[in-house]
């Protein structure tokens, strides 16, 4: 039995895209045979009548009225569809009126959310400082996602924040988790008793997902921006973050993830860390335990930091033996090509390779890098690769040309890649890798990957890992393991 329902909205206007979208939504609902949304002009009423969609209600509509006309297989389905339409149209207001009611200034936003205590700023860098300053003046903590903020502005903002008991996360802070709430690029991880201060986006992500694998959780993960621990900035946000985490009874362990602080800043940072009264783990690339005060445990890799914080050991994901893998390569394949979307992961891999006696060249060189080395680890998220292009974490296809080049290079032994999941990342980053491999020669180098994510992430770690393995990629439990396996393979190749 067909049911025809018309709902007429008098004097109601909706833009074309919204009309089409709503029409498609309603048409796709269960039990709906046909649906249109049109103005009630004479021509359109004739069209609806000819299509068997018009009833006496719709016949009364005029050209300034919006007619929702549908034909369903039952009253129930018709009513549900109309309810859906009403909800989308927000009870008589235009859907776009809700958009019009969205705040367009900080002032109106704060009026709508008077209890907000954080502003996340993602504007072109030249405007970010001004917006951050305005937010601080309104008593808001600030997370600056934007990059291209000058050092002078960063210092000024952080001093302003510090003078007012606030904190600035960033600039160029892409990742944070505050009170279990993920901000910008972050993974879905359990809430727990670990507090993190990170001058590193993907470092924070890698730590949080590895800790999650080990059964731990994050209370807060505060991103301070890559320059905060420099002498120019003096670790203003880091010191503030340490105070906040130390004072939070829900935080039982503190973790610092960073490259080495500036010489003048290091003492203040480590002294404060050592005096929190809580266990502290420092994963500071380039430092050793000997350079840290008592009370701070050194972690050489993010994996080690996670294992210390989680008090557990990460299982190796792949049981492949380095010797067997090296034997599968032809003699001329001796070179490592690392293609990274995460800067810290690129740095960590360099450190792991160096500790195995393999120095590499990189566009983001870690201490000990060798510009002449045939082994190259590239941070494809660095500015020179993302000028006018999307970040490879958002659009993984930007990595494809470099991946193709490495695959076709007869000297490449191992291609090292990271695949980063979570909020903000591409919905299916593994597929880009798989597509590139499928288009290439079966006689190819080894591809070793780590997948930075959890099973709760939108992309689902297990699915991404399985897809990569099915395509012949060796998937390791973490970035450090991937680099370590690479080092072993290349070392075997050269002996």
């Amino acid at each position, binding site marked *: 039995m067909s049911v025809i329902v018309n709902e007429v909205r008098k*004097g109601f*206007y*909706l*833009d*074309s*895209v*919204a*009309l*089409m979208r709503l*029409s498609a939504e309603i048409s796709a609902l269960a039990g709906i045979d046909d649906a*249109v*949304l*049109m*103005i009630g*002009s*004479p*021509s*359109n009423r*004739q*069209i609806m009548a*000819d*299509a068997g969609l018009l009833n006496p209600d719709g016949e009364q509509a005029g*050209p*300034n009225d919006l007619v929702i006309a549908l034909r369903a297989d039952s009253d129930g389905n018709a009513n549900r569809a109309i309810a859906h339409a009403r909800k989308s149209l927000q009870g008589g*207001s*235009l859907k*776009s*009126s809700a*958009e*019009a*009611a*969205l*705040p*367009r200034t900080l002032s*109106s936003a704060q009026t*709508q959310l008077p209890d907000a205590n954080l502003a996340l700023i993602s504007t072109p860098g030249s405007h970010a400082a001004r917006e951050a300053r305005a937010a601080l003046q309104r008593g808001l903590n600030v997370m600056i996602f934007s990059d291209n903020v000058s050092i002078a502005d960063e210092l000024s903002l952080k001093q302003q924040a510090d003078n007012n008991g606030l904190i600035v996360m960033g600039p160029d802070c892409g990742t944070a988790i505050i009170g279990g709430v993920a901000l910008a690029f972050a993974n879905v991880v359990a809430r727990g008793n670990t507090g993190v201060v990170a001058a590193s986006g993907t470092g924070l992500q890698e730590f949080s997902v590895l800790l999650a694998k080990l059964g731990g959780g994050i209370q807060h993960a505060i991103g301070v921006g890559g320059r905060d621990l420099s002498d120019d900035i003096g670790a203003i946000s880091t010191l503030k973050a340490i105070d906040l985490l130390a004072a939070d009874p829900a935080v039982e362990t503190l973790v610092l993830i960073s490259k080495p602080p500036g010489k003048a800043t290091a003492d203040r940072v480590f002294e404060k860390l050592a005096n929190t009264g809580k266990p502290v783990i420092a994963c500071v690339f380039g430092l050793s335990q000997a350079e840290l005060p008592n009370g701070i445990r050194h972690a050489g890799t993010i994996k080690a930091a996670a294992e210390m914080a989680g008090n557990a050991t990460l299982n190796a994901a792949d049981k492949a033996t380095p010797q067997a893998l090296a034997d599968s390569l032809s003699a001329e394949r001796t070179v490592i090509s690392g293609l990274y979307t995460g800067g810290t992961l690129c740095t960590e891999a360099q450190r792991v390779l160096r500790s195995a006696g393999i120095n590499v060249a990189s566009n983001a060189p870690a201490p000990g890098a060798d510009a002449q080395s045939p082994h190259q680890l590239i941070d494809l998220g660095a500015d020179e690769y993302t000028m006018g292009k999307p970040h490879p974490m958002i659009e993984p296809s930007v990595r494809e040309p470099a991946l193709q080049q490495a695959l076709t290079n007869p000297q490449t032994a191992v291609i090292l890649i990271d695949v980063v999941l979570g909020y903000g990342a591409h919905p299916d980053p593994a597929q880009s890798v798989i597509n590139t491999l499928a288009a290439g020669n079966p006689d190819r180098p080894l591809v070793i990957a780590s997948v930075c994510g959890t099973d709760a992430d939108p992309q689902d770690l297990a699915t991404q890992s399985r897809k990569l393995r099915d395509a012949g990629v060796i998937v390791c439990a973490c970035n450090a393991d991937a680099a370590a396996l690479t080092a072993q393979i290349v070392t075997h190749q050269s002996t």
Partner: protein
Amino acid sequence: MESCGALALQSLQHGTGEVLAVLASSVYLANPVGVLCLLPAASGAGPINLTGHYQRPTALVVGAQWQFSQQLLSIDQQAIANLQQTPVWQPAAHPNWTPARLRQTLIDASAALAELQCDAPLPAVTRILDRGALALGEWLAQHRAGTPGDPADAVTALIGCGDGLTPAGDDYLTGFLIALHSVDQHRAGQQLTAHLQNHVIQRTSRISAAHLLAACRGMASEYLHNFIYAVMANNRPALQSATDQLRSYGHSSGYYAARGAIDALTIIAE
């Protein structure tokens, strides 16, 4: 503000009015004089458009009162736009043209139209559009042959036909009218205008009628004028640029307006 259309200014100078529609990227204001459309910067000038950076009020609702005084536009007492030194927009003069040149470019113009093709409308809408287009073409051909008659019912059926804020039939008629004015077919344009004016208020929405009636006076979006002028001047780079602009002219309005224009120019070029 960036620009104020000549007809928008007339509406504003009346001094007061009400908010007619609040849409995602535009706000329509109205009063007894006419309708104007408030748009962000770089949206394309037009006869009823007021474009530029303005302070869009929060919680803007249909029926809110607007005021225009001393070059300041306010809605519900809240200043939103200053029109000091805002240029008044009218279409540029059309280029010189010849039928031969027109014929050369119309091939490229048809290809450009294909680029603008959007999602297909309902089949019934397509039928009415095709019949109306055919009837309009026949009417224009007769007019040029010196045997003018009234446009057929199929032309009338174009008004208000189609989905969207400005129905496809109205967009088609807009393109057709602007093309007629551009090639100085003013008598044909006037006759078509007289016919449309008898029907437009009853057959389409106030918003779409405002655009269509502006076209009756030879004015539409600058993007449409750019497109038509590029065809007339046989200027292929300008045609490509104008095609790109028309892509952002509503959801499908650019396509239907260009189609109406090309159909009119094709008959003129014969």
